[in-house]
């Protein structure tokens, strides 16, 4: 199938058979527990490992078929961003970016290097020595190097894991913007939910080598298809929102269709957020309390969201209640609590969420 990646790999501990859609919005994330062989999969697609026996088909183009077709890494037109960037230490920034431009006429290379550096937000780093770059700068240069040959597919291997925490949260936004700007179909592998929420337009949940669910991050994290997916991703509402106000360390965020205002406490490391910024509002189901309308007095939780129960499902000792309060919100309550409140689909409830339980992930479109 064109517009997708089909991989069959049996290698070491990895036994995977996947078809990953890559058409439409640019960034697709392969999400799964660590140690599941996601990196091996990526290396097989790049041509750095041989899926023996197995097959790799990218956009309908058979790159590896196990017996007769073996396209070497150098001919695959696939970009790869290494975790540790792997910049060539003996070359400067420009020569690094130009490295993959062998097929481009010499007179046009300078232009292409400048273009790639600009796309990656690294124009100011031209001519620098690699040893002088910080972690974040090195990543931009590595991105520019991967994008310069205009690959048909860009592969990212846990792109933010090699960076320290403050750099990471800053770069999440930058990286997302670069990926959207370049428009190159991108496949990233990660076991970090924040990374996936911040970067991806589509999540493919992979457990033991099989695709369990494909969907938008908010959908997959908020409404896992089944218990197996829920165990891997956790249950978390992740609704798109826009920051409207900021003051006293508290951000006001508008979420969902009813223009309801949710109060969110500024999250450490996300201090760059301000009015107008697009975010994903993440709330774990365990942090949502439900009460009946009209009974609430003053209380410490800052957010009281009236809504209607849409679904009730028993999940072990807990009951998962889905509430529509302008946006879909999941809540976990105990079974006695559900009895006492008489929760059934259609019940009117008020969902309470404490400010610090609201986690904002910047997510520019």
């Amino acid at each position, binding site marked *: 199938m064109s517009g997708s990646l089909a991989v069959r790999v049996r290698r070491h501990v990895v036994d995977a058979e996947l078809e990953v859609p890559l058409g439409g919005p640019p960034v697709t994330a392969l999400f799964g527990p660590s140690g599941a062989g996601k990196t091996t999969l990526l290396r097989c697609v*790049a*041509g*750095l490992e041989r899926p023996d026996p197995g097959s790799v088909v990218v956009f309908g183009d058979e790159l590896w078929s196990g017996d007769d077709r073996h396209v*070497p*890494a*150098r*001919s*695959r037109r*696939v*970009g*790869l961003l*290494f975790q*540790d960037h*792997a910049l*060539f*230490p*003996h070359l400067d920034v420009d020569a690094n970016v130009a*490295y*993959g431009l*062998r*097929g481009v006429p010499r007179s046009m290379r300078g232009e292409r290097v400048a273009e790639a550096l600009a796309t990656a937000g690294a124009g100011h780093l031209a001519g620098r020595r690699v*040893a002088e770059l910080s972690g974040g700068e090195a990543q931009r240069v590595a991105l520019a*190097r*991967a994008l310069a*040959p205009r690959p048909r597919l860009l592969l990212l291997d846990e792109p933010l894991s090699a960076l320290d925490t403050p750099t990471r949260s800053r770069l999440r936004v930058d990286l997302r913007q670069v990926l959207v700007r370049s428009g190159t179909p991108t496949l990233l592998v990660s076991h970090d939910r924040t990374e996936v929420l911040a970067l991806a337009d589509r999540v493919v949940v992979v457990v033991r080598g099989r695709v369990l669910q494909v969907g938008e991050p908010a959908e997959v994290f908020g409404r896992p298809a089944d218990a197996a997916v829920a165990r891997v991703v956790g249950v978390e509402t992740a609704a798109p929102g826009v920051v409207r106000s900021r003051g006293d360390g508290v951000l006001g965020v508008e979420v969902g269709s009813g223009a309801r205002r949710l109060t969110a406490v500024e999250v450490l490391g996300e201090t760059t957020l301000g009015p107008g910024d697009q975010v994903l509002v993440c709330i774990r189901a365990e942090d949502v309390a439900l009460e009946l309308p009209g009974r609430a007095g003053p209380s410490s939780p800052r957010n009281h969201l009236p809504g209607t129960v849409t679904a009730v499902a028993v999940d072990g000792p807990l009951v998962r209640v889905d509430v529509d309060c302008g946006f879909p919100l999941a809540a976990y309550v105990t079974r006695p609590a559900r009895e006492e409140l008489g929760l059934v689909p259609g019940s009117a409830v008020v969902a309470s969420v404490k400010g610090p339980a609201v986690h904002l992930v910047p997510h520019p479109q």
Partner: protein
Amino acid sequence: MDWQAVAVSARLALATTAILLVVAVPLAGWLAFSRRRWTVAAEAVVALPLVLPPTVLGYYLLVAMGARSPVGRWWQEVTGSTLAFSFSGLLVASVLSSLPFAVQPLLAAYGGVDRRLLEASAVLGRGWWGTLGRVALPLSRAGLATAAVLTFAHTVGEFGVVLMVGGNIPGETRTASISVYDSVQAFDQVSAGRTSLLLLGFSLVVLTLTYTLQRRGGPGWARP
């Protein structure tokens, strides 16, 4: 002192070094980066001259270059002269016996190159030779220098193989080390002493140079 022999030694060492660098750069690359199992066997063969008595190596080379071997016959048909007891034959022997001295330092240097850089090069569209020339070799310059110095020095110091294959023809195959042996045989202590002193000084200089190269490790990024 036997200047003629010193000149033969210098010519032989220069030619051997030039040939071996061309051969060893890709050969060591293949040994270092290939994933096939039998590279271990190939590595053992390359290292053989390190442990084999020079007379044994010389004996086999002499047999291979003789008129009864296909190689020797082919050479005689093409050039009209014998390979054994000629400078060309000496050069072939010297290339083979010095092979490990060129390959081993390069092998060690390649081993210190981050594999990810080689992978990055492949993904960016370079083949094996391109990656070797643009990434592995530039990052192994100290190893390349060590290989050149050691090959040159070992060729100058070679005795057993040279005697077996080259014989002792002045101006053609009589090298400095053989000249010392000759002088002693002829009770010419003065000449033997002078040539020995020259070789001693040369060896000391070479070793100092080698250790300096290794200590510094070349530019900072060349160190593993």
